[in-house]
């Protein structure tokens, strides 16, 4: 008796399963039909669209749209939008803002917000007025009026000195030096000489030292003048403090001796 009941239950469950399977098959067929109907439509759309899309791509419009799309979210930031809406409000009813005469202009120009806005306007004008070749060179150099610049300027190379050859050159390692130890002909330098010079001066050379030496030689090749302490510190990025640690006591001269460059000039 029990077995028959459980068999019945089993058949019931099989029937239910079959019914559900039928529904799945029905939906699958319906989907198939839908795809079959849509395929020619999609094909037609792709064929028609691919022509203009290729044309836009060749003109660069798609990349430009991508750049614009990338820049737009920044423009839609809430504070920017609020500012724009405020500006539009003012523009909507221009006659409701109080007029400003020449004296009022002077007063307004002393307000920090107005000055900031003028700065923004000048920056925009600079961008709009820029020629096709980039920013135009200034005819007159503007005074910096003592304001500290945001970034330390890379010091310009000192003028290449016109020193006469020394009266008592020293011969060492097959090359000629000044009595103070500066190589007369920078082209006769090689790394082995640098190692010997550093050993004689008591400087243990590490990779950090070599980086600075290589930078100094590249700078000498580019400018023709041996870089002084400040130029090396700022130009090579190693910083003044680290430079004094790497080449103690007289960093400019020690570096020049090791790198086979002339004695650097300048006191700053």
């Amino acid at each position, binding site marked *: 008796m029990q077995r028959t009941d459980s068999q019945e239950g089993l058949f019931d469950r099989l029937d239910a399963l079959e019914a559900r399977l039928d529904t799945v098959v029905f939906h699958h067929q319906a989907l198939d039909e839908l795809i079959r109907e849509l395929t020619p439509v999609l094909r037609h759309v792709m064929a028609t669209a691919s022509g203009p899309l290729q044309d836009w791509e060749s003109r660069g419009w798609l990349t430009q749209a991508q750049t614009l799309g990338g820049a737009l979210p920044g423009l839609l930031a809430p504070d920017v939008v609020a500012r724009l809406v405020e500006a539009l409000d003012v523009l909507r009813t221009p006659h409701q803002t109080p007029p400003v005469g020449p004296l009022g202009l002077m007063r307004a120009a002393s307000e920090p917000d107005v000055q900031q806005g003028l700065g923004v306007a000048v920056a925009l004008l600079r961008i709009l007025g820029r020629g096709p070749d980039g920013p135009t060179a200034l005819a007159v150099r503007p005074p910096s009026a003592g304001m*500290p610049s945001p970034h330390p300027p890379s010091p310009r190379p000192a003028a290449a000195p016109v020193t006469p050859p020394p009266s008592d050159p020293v011969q060492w390692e097959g090359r000629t030096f000044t009595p103070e*130890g500066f190589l007369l002909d920078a082209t006769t330098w090689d790394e082995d000489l640098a190692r010997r010079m550093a050993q004689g001066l008591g400087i243990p050379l590490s990779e950090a030292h070599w980086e600075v030496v290589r930078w100094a030689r590249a700078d000498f090749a580019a400018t023709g003048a041996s870089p*002084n302490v400040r130029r090396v510190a700022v130009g090579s990025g190693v910083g003044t403090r680290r430079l004094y640690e790497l080449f103690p006591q*007289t960093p400019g001269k020690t570096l020049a001796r090791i790198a086979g460059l002339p004695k650097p000039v300048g006191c700053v």
Partner: protein
Amino acid sequence: MSDFPFNQAAAAAPTRPQEGRRIALVCSKGGLDECYPVLIMANAARMTGIGCSVFFTFWGLDVITESRCDHLHVNFIGNPSSPMPYMLAGLPGMEALGTSFMKQRMEALDIPSVREMVRLLAESGCELYGCELAMRMFDRKAEDLLPEVREVITATDFFEKTHGADIIFV
């Protein structure tokens, strides 16, 4: 290395880095033309391997004060070397004009600003001190000074710190 020729040669030259040689500079004036000799000589001393300490006192305190160091003026009045006649130099705005010309000239020669020079000195190992009496006189606190200043000390402390050094008063 027995055949390294330059130790002896460098020892004979006057610029041989000497462990013991030290100088102490006292900067008591706050004009742009009056503080630069101190800053440049201190830097040159460090580049030559000479230990250096600088004491900023009286108006020299302006050189190391955060709010003043970018606004130092050139002194045209009472300066016999001044290119500007006294009558003209006394007019309002002329000092500022002359200072801006001097600053343009310094920029053209790639001379760093006062702030940059102080930073350079501190990084090269120069010790910078403020005068305690001048701080009280001008009612300034340690926070008002540039971060590169080592500490605020009295003149007596400065003499103790620079024992054996050559003192140069500017």
